[in-house]
Every structure is written in C-alpha cells, then in structure tokens.
C-alpha cells in the first residue's frame, strides 16, 4: 500500500535535493564557483581601472618660466636651482626640465625615449607658446570616454560569467558522474526502480538551481562594485545563461560518459576547457587571433556564450541579434547530449 506521509517526495525531487546537498557540502566547489570569480573580477578590475590622466612632474629654472608653465593643468611645476633640477631630471623625479635659452628662447631637456618626457615636452611647449600670446588657429574641444560599458571591467565581467558557467557545468557534471561510477553508486541506483533518466535530469535541475546563485553573484558583484551595466532585457540574459549552462552541461556529460577514474575525466575536461579559456575572449578580445581561425573560434560554445552575454549586457542587443550565438549553443547542446546518451556507461 502506498504510504503518502510527508517524507515521501518524488524520486526526481529527492535526486535533485541530494545533488544540491552534496554540492553545498563541498567547500572547494563553493570556493571555485562563488568566491574565485569575485576575487578574479575584483583583482582585474582594480588592476585595469581607469585612472584620471596623470599629472606630469616637471621642473623650471626661473620663476617666469614656472609661472608660464603653471597655466597648463596637466603639469605639476616646481622651480628649482640648476644643480637640484639636473639631479631631479636624472633620477626621474621630473620628466622634463625647462631652461631659459639665448634671446628669450626656451630649451627643454628630457629623455625622448620616454613617453612621459615626450608628453611633457608637448604640454610644456603649448603652455609656453600660449603664455607668449599664441592663438590656436583651429578651435578644439575634448570628449572623454569614461562612461560605464566601455571600460575593461565591463568587458571582463561577461567573460568571467561565461567562464564560470562553463567551469561549474563541466566540472559539476564530470566529477559527480565519474565519482558515482567509480564508487559503483551509479550501478546501485540503476538497480533500484528509479528511471535512469532521472539520474541525468537531477543534474539538469540542480544545475538550474545553482545557476541562479552563480549568475547572481557575478553580476551582482560587477554591478554593485563596478557599476557594470545591464542594458539588455533580463529575460534574454537569463535565457542565454540557461542555454549556455545546458550546453556546457551536455559537453560535461559527454566528457564523463565513459571515464572510470577522476584522473581520466580531469584530463579530458581540462584539455577541452583550456583552449577555450584562451581563444574564446574571456580576458581579451577573440578578434586578436588571425582571420583564418575566426570561424573556428566563433563556433566554440564559450565564444558564443561570452559574445552573447556581452552583446546583451553592454549593447542591449535583442534576442534576434544574439540568434547566431543561441544557435551555436543549441547545436552543441543537441549534438553533445545525443552523443553522450549513446556512449554513456551505466556501470
């Protein structure tokens, strides 16, 4: 007689719950999925943050010259006696030294192989000429590009998100499946009335649960700490993340479909993921690779995921605009999943 007291949950719910519990009780996994991407984003975000244009330090020998040069806001001018000034130039404390020359002329002493020296030369000369009454024949104005969306951190966050989606899906599937096979736990489950596809479905559902947290952590951090924009529709972004995660999950399933040892599956997973970390544009644009490899790079799931995420988040692209990326991910999902089902070893 079927007993329906409150502990009788469905087998699929139980399998999913167990996956989730196992994952949360693995401190290393929690670190790599949640803490590591934040540390990486914070580190890189700080290293490559946009600093205000540097003020260049220069020295002048006379008060007149110093005064003329101080009109230029990008120069920090000190007036020094000759010996001290020469010494400061030699030791790099100032980038340039302005010395009065014969007949009201000015001599600039600087290292012309040093970009700072060359910039200081241009700024100093402009200040001296303007102070002497030069009027620029063409009026010009500056427009600075510092708005969110075009900084390195804006480029980086979708890349890290894509990398994280790939890593957690492939590692999560690969290790858990091979571990269950190695312990003969998979065989034990097959010996119960549990339908076999529940075993695979439990991974799908626990993945989706984790996805919410994973994506939330990376995007929340990017948006709160660095103001990374989310210009596209959130629903489309969610769709992209789910599809990417499922494709990577299918790839992980394929990689784990026959391996009997953790070592074997680690090797397989790393050899598949490593090239994608490099060529798929996580840290720098994939466009930097030669043209003839671009079609291959574009066909990789990580490239498609990251491109899609960037287009959505940074350019506010519509679903139609990311259709090629969704297509690439869809093909990977279908091909890997059907291959994996054919090859899968249940014992």
């Amino acid at each position, binding site marked *: 007689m079927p007993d329906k007291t409150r502990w*009788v949950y469905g087998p699929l719910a*139980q399998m999913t719950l*167990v996956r989730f519990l196992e994952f949360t009780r693995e401190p290393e996994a929690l670190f790599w999925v949640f803490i590591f991407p934040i540390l990486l984003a914070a580190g890189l975000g700080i290293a490559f943050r946009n600093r205000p244009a540097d003020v260049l330090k220069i020295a002048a020998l006379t008060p007149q010259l110093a005064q003329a040069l101080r009109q230029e806001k990008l120069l920090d001018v000190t007036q020094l006696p000759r010996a001290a000034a020469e010494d400061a130039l030699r030791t790099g404390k100032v980038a340039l030294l302005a010395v009065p020359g014969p007949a009201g002329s000015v001599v600039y002493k600087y290292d012309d192989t040093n970009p700072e020296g060359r910039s200081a030369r241009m700024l100093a000369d402009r200040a001296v000429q303007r102070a002497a009454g030069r009027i620029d024949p063409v009026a010009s104005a500056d427009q600075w590009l510092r708005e969110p969306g075009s900084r390195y951190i804006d480029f980086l966050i979708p890349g890290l998100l894509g990398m994280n989606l790939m890593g957690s899906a492939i590692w999560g599937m690969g290790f858990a499946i091979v571990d269950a096979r190695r312990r*003969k736990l998979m065989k*034990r489950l097959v*010996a119960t009335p549990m339908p076999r596809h529940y075993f695979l479905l439990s991974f799908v559902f626990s993945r989706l649960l984790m996805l919410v947290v994973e994506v939330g952590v990376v995007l929340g951090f990017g948006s709160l700490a660095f103001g990374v924009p989310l210009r596209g529709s959130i629903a489309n972004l969610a769709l992209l993340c789910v599809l990417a995660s499922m494709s990577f999950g299918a790839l992980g399933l394929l990689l784990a479909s026959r391996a009997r040892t953790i070592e074997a599956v680690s090797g397989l997973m790393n050899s598949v993921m490593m090239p994608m970390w490099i060529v798929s544009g996580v840290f720098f644009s994939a466009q930097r690779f030669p043209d003839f490899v671009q079609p291959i790079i574009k066909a990789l799931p990580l490239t498609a995921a990251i491109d899609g995420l960037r287009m959505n988040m940074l350019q506010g692209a519509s679903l139609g605009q990311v259709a090629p990326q969704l297509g690439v991910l869809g093909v990977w999902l279908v091909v890997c999943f059907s291959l994996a089902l054919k090859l899968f070893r249940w014992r």
Partner: protein
Amino acid sequence: MAAALEVRNLRKAYKDVIAVDGLQLEVQSGECFGLLGPNGAGKTTTIEICEGLIQADSGSVEMLGMRWQTDASELRQRLGIQLQDTQLSEKLTVFETVRLFRSFYHSGPSPAEAIALVQLQEKQKARVGTLSGGQKQRLAMACALVGDPDFLFLDEPTTGLDPQARRQLWELIEEFKLAGRTILLTTHYMDEAERLCDRVAIMDHGKIIALGTPRQLIASIGVEHVVEFSIGRESAALTLSALREIDGVREVTAQNGSVQLQVTELHRAVPALLAELNRQGLPLTELRTHSASLEDVFVTLTGRRLRDA
C-alpha cells in the same frame, strides 16, 4: 510452493573467460540460499544477471513469476539489492540516504523504520563518511530493505568486516529470515553459509559443483572429522603413505608443513596416528581436530582450499 527464482542454462562469457557456464539454480520462496565459492567462481556475475544488471549470453531467469525482458519495472519494485562494495555518497547523512532510496519505491517502511531495522538510529544524522565499515554495510542493508522487498540479494555482505561486525550482520540476516523473506546470498566464508543458509550451492569455474543443505553436503564427503597436525622441521622425514594405511583415514593432504587427515572415526584414528608418528620417531608440535565443514567439502571436491583457490 513455487520457486521464487528459477535460473536455466545461464551462460555468460567475458572476452576469453567463461564466467558462468550453463548454470541451473532454483531458490524456493522463503528460503535463504547461499551461493558459495572462491573469488572468481562466477558468483557475482550470476547474482548480477539475476538482479537485471548484466545481460546473460543465453539462458533464462524467472523471478517471482516474472522476467527481466517483460516486467523489469515491476521486478525492480520487489527486489532488495545490496551490491558488493558500493560506496554510498559520503556527504549525505544516513537519514538522507535512506530517504533517497525510499523515494524510489511505491511502498515500504518509512526511512526511520528502515534505519531502526538495521539498528542505526543513533547514526541517523551522521554523515555516511564517518561510519565504520560495519555501519556502512548496515546502511546498505537499510537501502535494500526500504522497498519492503519480496526477494533480497546480498552479495558478500560481510567481506572485509571485523568479526564483531560480521556477527551483528549475521543476526540481522537471521531476523530477515524469520520475517520470511527469500534471500540469495553469496559468500566465500563457509562458516557464514553454514550458519545462515538453508541450502547452499558450491560454485567453481562458473558451474555448480555441489548443492544441498550444509548438513547434506558435509555428510556427502563421508568424513566426519578433520585432524590437522604438524611436526615442525621434521616434515620432510614423514612418510605420508604410512598415514593412509591408518584405519578410518580417508584422505591425506600435506600443505605448508602441516598435514590434514580426513577421518571417519576420531577416537580410533588419533591414537593410531600418534603411534605411527612415534614409530617414525617424529615429534608432534601441533595437533588439532574439528568437525568437517563446508570448507572441507570444497577441498574434497576441488583439491584446493577456498582462500588460495
């Protein structure tokens, strides 16, 4: 009474090894049947074919009136299975593990009841990874019982356990027997089979070489006692043929400096043996006798001992 399990002409080969070679087997409903044999005899292959985990090359298996080909899902509901060395997930608690397995079955005891059956109540909230070998094996048993099975498969349930844990497990299995479950058990411990099984089949090289109750099998070799002795360093000087002449001695085997005699009448054979050794002038360093066991049946049938087979 109908047979709970009927196996006919079962055959299974792996590459060049024939694991199961035309096996016939019948387990009656309500009995505890032991499949005995050394490692590699084909016990596990046989039991896993019966459990529907391996496909046989040929032959048929009928269980509880059903067949794997047509009634797999119904059969799964009614079998309790404990596999050889399954490691359950170490990060889950005992309760979570049993609850997971309970969710696969339509009916059966609650997880707490199943845990109580194997006396692990105190460990309910403990992670599986912290359990001892015997406790893990009892947990595996709880997972096998949680669907209230009509037929229980136990594959080497006490292998690798310490003597105390083995005895605890035996008591548990005896309770299942009292509850009237049909059990098919494999083991390579003869004492385990003698204690637990109503009938045993001795397997060697994929075939059953003897079948009957433990008493019948022991009686079948026509020996009641075994005398074992050693004479230290002098063993080379011993004339074995003289021992065979002793009245009531059936069989003489010498192994690693110790000599085994299979004997029908202990009270006549032992004095005669002592006299013979005395006549040959050899000092006795050790003398043991025991009643014939299934181990001796195996030795008689195959000429090998179970452990080194």
